[in-house]
């Protein structure tokens, strides 16, 4: 699994810092080839994308709103990765996580906002965790591969939620399958409102308190992975299962705990989308964020700090990408999916391809100076 074979070069920090940048450049270069193939200018596309993502306060707000989703799903995928598990189900876990959040917001019209938020955090995490628990249990106890089961659970989640939205939760007398709008007291506070309260004027955008929750989740994941016994057990299992078992770690329990935590993190994504922005439950609201999480985790090298940086980058791709498609209609949002896949390929599957030469490059001068 990625993360297991990080280099031990002498300039320990150079390669980890440089490699994601080179990988990103390579993935963008490959994407430029695609842009050329459909007859557009890659440099103009990149310029439009960058200004669309960071050009003004509002754009930055949108970038951070998308980034919030990707921090949650990136953390979810990363936690599983540390245990040698590949959670492809973040998409479905986020989707199911939105269900209890929506039910809560629909029912809790009169509650104080703080209480709604606290309950919603628990509800979202529980929903996602429950949807991840079944594949985890099946992997741990029945040996069915978590990759295939989580993919199937994505399809099943989609079917269940479509059924609920089309037949049960739909607002009466309405065509599009979505719930009625929640009462404003159950909305996640917007950051521009919070900023205004302390006398700081920032542009209007959908970025909301969930961003702060996402960053806090990143901190908790860091504590869990590197400063608790469970995190140690998880990483030990991911590095070497035989040694972990010999060391007294129970793989079944560790797998179930890790996948449940992973699912809970994915479920939290729904806070941003359902409670923070749409204020209703929509069909397919995760919109592929679960899959982006894979790319974010790999690019962020499964570390919360890296994940936040990678999530902002992908937020910029999403926000810049939608601006881009206004000016270059040929470059649809699907182009972002291509870039995302290429980044997973370059950062994840081809990680050794560039690492070895880079390691050698930085090791040689060190060895030469040690010899002289």
């Amino acid at each position, binding site marked *: 699994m990625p993360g297991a074979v990080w280099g031990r070069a002498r300039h320990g920090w150079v390669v980890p810092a440089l490699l994601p940048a080179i990988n990103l450049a390579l993935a963008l270069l490959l994407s430029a080839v695609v842009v050329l193939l459909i007859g557009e200018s890659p440099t103009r596309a990149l310029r439009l994308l960058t200004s669309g993502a960071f050009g003004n306060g509002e754009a930055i707000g949108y970038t951070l709103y998308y980034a919030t989703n990707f921090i949650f799903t990136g953390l979810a995928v990363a936690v599983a990765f540390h245990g040698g598990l590949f959670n492809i189900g973040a998409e479905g876990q986020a989707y199911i996580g939105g269900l209890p959040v929506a039910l809560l917001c629909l029912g809790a019209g009169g509650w104080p906002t703080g209480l709604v938020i606290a309950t919603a955090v628990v509800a979202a995490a529980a929903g996602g965790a429950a949807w991840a628990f079944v594949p985890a249990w099946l992997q741990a106890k029945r*040996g069915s*591969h978590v990759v295939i089961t989580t*993919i199937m659970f994505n399809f099943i989640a989609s*079917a269940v939620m479509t*059924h609920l939205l089309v037949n049960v939760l739909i607002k009466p007398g309405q065509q599009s399958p979505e719930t009625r709008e929640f009462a404003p007291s159950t909305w996640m506070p917007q950051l521009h409102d919070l900023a205004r309260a302390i006398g700081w004027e920032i542009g209007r955008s959908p970025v909301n308190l969930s961003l702060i929750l996402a960053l806090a989740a990143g901190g908790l994941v860091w504590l869990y992975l590197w400063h608790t016994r469970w995190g140690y057990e998880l990483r030990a299992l991911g590095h070497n299962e035989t040694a972990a078992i010999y060391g007294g770690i129970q793989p079944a329990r560790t797998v179930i705990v890790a996948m449940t935590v992973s699912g809970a993190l994915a479920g939290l994504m729904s806070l941003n989308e359902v409670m923070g922005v749409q204020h209703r439950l929509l069909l397919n609201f995760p919109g592929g964020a679960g899959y982006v999480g894979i790319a974010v985790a790999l690019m962020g090298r499964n570390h919360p700090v890296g994940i936040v940086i990678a999530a902002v980058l992908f937020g910029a791709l999403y926000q810049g990408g939608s601006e881009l498609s206004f000016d270059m209609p040929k470059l*649809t949002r699907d182009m972002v999916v291509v870039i995302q896949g290429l980044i997973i390929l370059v950062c994840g*599957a081809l*990680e*050794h391809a560039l690492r070895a030469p880079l390691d050698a490059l930085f090791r040689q001068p060190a060895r030469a100076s040690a010899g002289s």
Partner: protein
Amino acid sequence: MSESILLLALLAAATARGAAPLVLAALGGLFAERSGIVDIGLEGKMLASAFAAAATAAVTGSAWAGLAAGIAAAVLVGLVHGFACITHHGNQVVSGMALNITISGLTVVLGYAWFHEGGQTPLLGPGARFAPIELPGVSALGAVPGLGLVYREVLSGHNLLVYIAAVAVPAVAWIVYRTRFGLRLRAVGESPGAVDTAGISVSAVRYGALAVSGVLCGLSGAYLSIAHNASFIRDMSAGKGYLALAALIFGQWRPVPTLGACLLFAFADVVQARLQGTPLPLVGVVPVQLIQAIPYVLTVLLLAGFVGRAVAPRAIGVPYLKER
């Protein structure tokens, strides 16, 4: 009586049509996985082939050109997978998912830019797709009671790729168990070190396996877009690659049991299509969306219930490092 027999025959024929793409993809996966390479990219290879086949058939008007392009696209994707996993010892699941995601975006981007139909390819005319073939003597034998019906409704009237899928099962079994390549393939998947010691290149066998997998996935993808349907639609593989992989695992990486698993999945799909809107005893009418989930639920149940002790090729998922 005769009506219910006819219904059974129609169900069987629909199952055969539904199983064909699964069988082709699963047999492709069999080569890759037997050589020790996890092939979760079946989905992406099918989709790449479906797009390339439909796009080429739309431009040239030839189904055969479309099929060739589909196979070429799937083989190319397989070789990229090999480049990451064999040459650079990358993580095989990550590489496969990366390719799946890239292709799901790329097919739509290219389709949108080239054909301006919102990511679809133009509808194909009769010459540009594989039409149903009527087997010889249907009119004569079809009148025979019993067997004639089976011949007319179940065996005849499919397109070429369904028959290729049917022939592929014994052919693959023969290649895997009776040829030198098959022996090497299985050996590489179980004990690459031993194969290497015997002076055979592990990488070459694995690249070969991925190329064969590409050809079979190419047939499978072409089936979707230029035989069963008449154009490419975004994400038209719709999880069939994953179902094929599940069928392969459920079939314990052996051709004939894999065929059985594919038929089971296809049958579940036919049943779900027929159950839509039909009231069931005890539960009444089950919503369409839940019925559509039957094949996926079945996959989870099968993998959990019966494959607990599936014996995977021993070296699967492990990159071979010669220097160790």
